C-alpha cells in the first residue's frame, strides 16, 4: 500500500478527528466523526484487515453516527456552545494530549518492533495452509493455496473456534443493553 495513500487516509482520520473536537455545531461534529471513521476503515484495509474495516464502517460510521444524529435532532441541542470558553479545561486538555502524543512517539520510536513494515513481514499464505492444521475448513485451506487471504473466513473461524463462549456473552450484553435503553427512556407516568 503506497505510503502516499497511508498518509492521505491518516490525514483524513486525524483532520476530521480534530474537527470533531473543535466543532461548534454538534451535527458537524457527528458528520466529521463519521468521516474520520471512514478514514480509519481505509487504514484497516491497508493492514489487510478487510472484515474489520467493513465492520468499522457498518457499525461505527453507520449505526453509531446515526444514533448520535438522531439524538442530537431529538434533543434539539442548539449551538449555545460559544457562551464562554472554559479556558482551564481546554488548556489542560491540549496540554495532556500533546504530552501523551509526545510520549507515544518517544516510546514507539525507541522500540525495534515498530520498524516492521508490510515488506519485511510478508504473509506466507502458501505454507500457512499446511501449518494451520487439520481442524481448518477446506475452504480456508483452498483459498490459502490459491494465494489470497480469506480474511472474513479466518476471523469467523477464530471467533467460533476459540472464542465461542465470548460470543454468547457479547450477545447477552447487547440484549441487556437494549433492555436498559428501553427502561431508561421510558417516560415516568407518575412523575410529579
Amino acid at each position: 500500500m503506497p505510503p502516499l495513500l497511508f498518509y492521505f487516509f491518516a490525514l483524513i482520520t486525524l483532520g476530521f478527528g480534530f474537527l470533531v473536537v473543535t466543532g461548534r455545531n454538534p451535527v458537524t461534529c457527528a458528520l466529521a466523526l463519521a468521516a474520520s471513521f471512514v478514514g480509519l476503515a481505509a487504514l484497516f484495509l491497508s493492514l489487510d484487515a478487510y472484515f474489520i474495516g467493513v465492520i468499522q464502517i457498518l457499525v461505527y460510521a453507520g449505526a453509531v453516527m446515526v444514533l448520535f444524529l438522531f439524538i442530537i435532532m431529538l434533543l434539539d441541542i442548539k449551538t449555545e456552545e460559544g457562551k464562554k470558553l472554559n479556558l482551564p479545561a481546554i488548556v489542560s486538555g491540549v496540554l495532556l494530549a500533546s504530552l501523551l502524543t509526545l510520549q507515544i512517539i518517544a516510546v514507539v520510536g525507541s522500540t525495534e518492533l515498530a520498524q516492521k513494515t508490510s515488506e519485511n513481514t510478508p504473509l506466507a499464505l502458501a505454507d500457512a495452509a499446511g501449518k494451520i492444521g487439520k481442524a481448518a475448513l477446506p475452504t480456508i485451506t483452498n483459498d490459502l493455496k490459491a494465494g489470497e487471504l480469506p480474511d472474513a473466513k479466518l476471523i469467523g473461524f477464530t471467533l467460533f473456534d476459540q472464542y465461542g463462549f465470548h460470543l454468547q456473552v457479547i450477545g447477552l450484553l447487547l440484549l441487556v443493553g437494549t433492555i436498559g435503553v428501553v427502561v431508561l427512556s421510558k417516560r415516568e407516568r407518575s412523575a410529579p
Partner: protein
Amino acid sequence: MNASIILLLPFFSALVILLGHRQLKGASVLISVGSSIISFIACLVLLAAADDENNNKLLLPFLDVGHFHANIDVLIDKQSRGMMFIVSFIGMLVHLFSLGYMKDDDAKPRFFGSLSLFMFSMTGIVLAGNLIMMFIFWELVGLSSYLLIGHWYQKASAAEACKKAFLTNRIGDFGFMIGILLLFGANGGSVNLDDLATAFKSGPLAPDAPGYSAGFTTAAALCIFLGAMGKSAQFPLHVWLPDAMEGPTPVSALIHAATMVAAGVYMLVRVSFLIEASPLAAEIIAGIGCFTALMAALMATQQNDIKRVLAYSTLSQLGYMVMAVGAVAMAAQHGHEAHGPNPGHPAMFHLYTHAFFKAMLFLGSGAVIYACHHEQDIWKMGGLRKHMPVTFWTFAIGTLALMGLPYVTSGFYSKEGILGAAYDSGCSILFHAGTLTAVLTSFYMMRLLIVAFFGKPRTESAHHATEVPMIMLLPLVLLAIFSIFSAWDGFATPLQALKPAHERPHTTVLVASILAFLIGTIGAIYLYRGKDKDPVNIKLFANKFYFDEMYAVIVRVCQDRLAWIVTALERVFVDGLIVRLPTAIIARLGAATRLLQGGHLQGYTFLLGGGVIGVVYLVVFVLPRLGH
C-alpha cells in the same frame, strides 16, 4: 544541751501558738514571752560554761545521703556566744516592750507567734555549723520578717512592704545559694564551716592547691556576699529596709536594727577566711559598704519620719560594718594582722555596741509614737523633753552613743575601731568617707534630738504626750546602761571576746572621730535650734536618690513587660508550632482530598490522563535507567 533549748524552745512556742491560738487566747502571749526569757537564761548558762574549745555538736539530722551530710549541727565559739547573748538579751527586752506596745492589738497571738519564729530562726543562723543550715535559717528569718512587717496587712503599704522585703531577701538568697553550691563543689561535698576554713588554708581551695583559680574564689566570695547584701540591706538591695518600718516598732527594734540585719555581717565575719582569700572581693565589699554608709547618711539628713531616720542610720551603720569587714580583709592581704590576741573583729565590735543603742533608739521612738498616739512625723512633735523625761534621757544617751561621744559612749570605741581598720586597709578613700559619714551621723542624730525633744510642742498630741508605762520603760533603761558601758573592759564578760585588740589606734583616727563628732553636732544645733520647718531642703536626699522609683521601673519593664512579651511569644511559637500548625496541616490535607471527589467529570479524566502519562513515563524511561 542548752544549745538545743535555745534553738528549739522558740520553735515549739511558735508551733503551739500557731496550732492552738484560738483555745489559748491570752496565754499565747505568755508562752512566747516565757520562751524568750527561758532561752535568755539558757544563753547565760551557755556563756557561763565558757569552755573555750569550739564544740561542734550535732543536734538534729536533716539530710544524709550517702557520704553527704547537711544536718542541724551547732558551732559554739566566742563569736556565736557573743552574738547569742545579744540576740537573746535584746529579744527578751523587745518581748517585754511589746507586751505594753501591742496591748490593744487584736492579732496579738499571731504577732507573738511570729516573734518566736523569728527568735528560732535567728538563733539558727547564729549557731549554724554549716552553710546549708545557715541558708535554711536565712530564709526562715526572711519569712518571719515577712510575717512581722506584714502584721497590719490590712494596710496596703504594709502588704507591699512585706512582699518587697521578702523578694529582695530572696534575690540575696539566690546569690547565697550559688555561693554555697560553688563551695560545695570545690570542697568535695562538705559545706561545714570548719572544713571550709581548713580547705582554704591547706585543702583544695588553698592558693597553692593544684587547679586553684583566683577568679573562682572571688566569684564564690561575691556570691556569698550577695546573700549578706540581701539580708543586711547593702547598696543595690537596700530598698526594703526603710519600707520595713511599716511593721510595729518593737519589730523594727529587734529585727531591723539589732539582730536580723546584723546576720549578714555576722555571716561575713564567719566566712572571713573566704573573703581574705580573694583581694578583689575584699575591695568590692569594702567599697559597697562604704558607699552604702555614705549614701544612707546623706538620705537620713532629710527624713522627717522618726523611724525612717533611724532606719537610714541603721543602713549607714551596716555599711560601716561591711566596710570594716572588707577593710580588715584588705589589711590581712597586706600582711599585717589587724587584730591582736583575742579574735574580736572591729565589725563584730561595732555590731554589738550598735545593737544596744540602736534597739534602744527604736524602742525610744516606739515609746514616743505610742505616747503621741501613733504620730511619726518629727515636725509634729517637739518639746517632749518636759513631758517624757525618762524616755528623753534614755533616747539622748542612745543618740550620743550612736554619734560616738568621745570616751564616754560605747559607740565611740567601736566607730574608732572601724575607722582604724579603714585607715590601715591601705585605701585612703575608705577612711575619708568613713569620717564624712561620722560627721553626717552626728548631724542628723542631733537634728532628730533637737526637733523631737527640744523647743515647744508643735501639735496637740505632742502637748498631751505622757510618760509610757513601766513595762516599756524598763527595757529602755536597761539598754541605755548597756549603750554606755558595753565597751568598757570589765563590763559584759562574754562580749569581751568580740572586742578587737586594744593597741592604740593612730592619733589621726582619734582626732578625726572627735572632730567629726563636734562638727556634726554644732552644725545641727546651729541649723535646727527653735525651727518649725526644715530649713535645709534637698529633694535628692529626701526622695532617697529616687531608688524606689528606679526599681519600680526596672521591675515593671524587665519583669512584667518581658513576661507579657514571653507569654505572647510562647502562645504564638510553642502553642502555634506544636499544636496549631499540625492541626492546620491536617485540615488543609482534608480539604485537598475532598477536592478529588469534586464530582466534575473533566477533573476525573484529567487526573486519569495525568496518571497514565506518569506511569508510562515511569515505566518506560525511569525504571530501565534504575536498572530494574
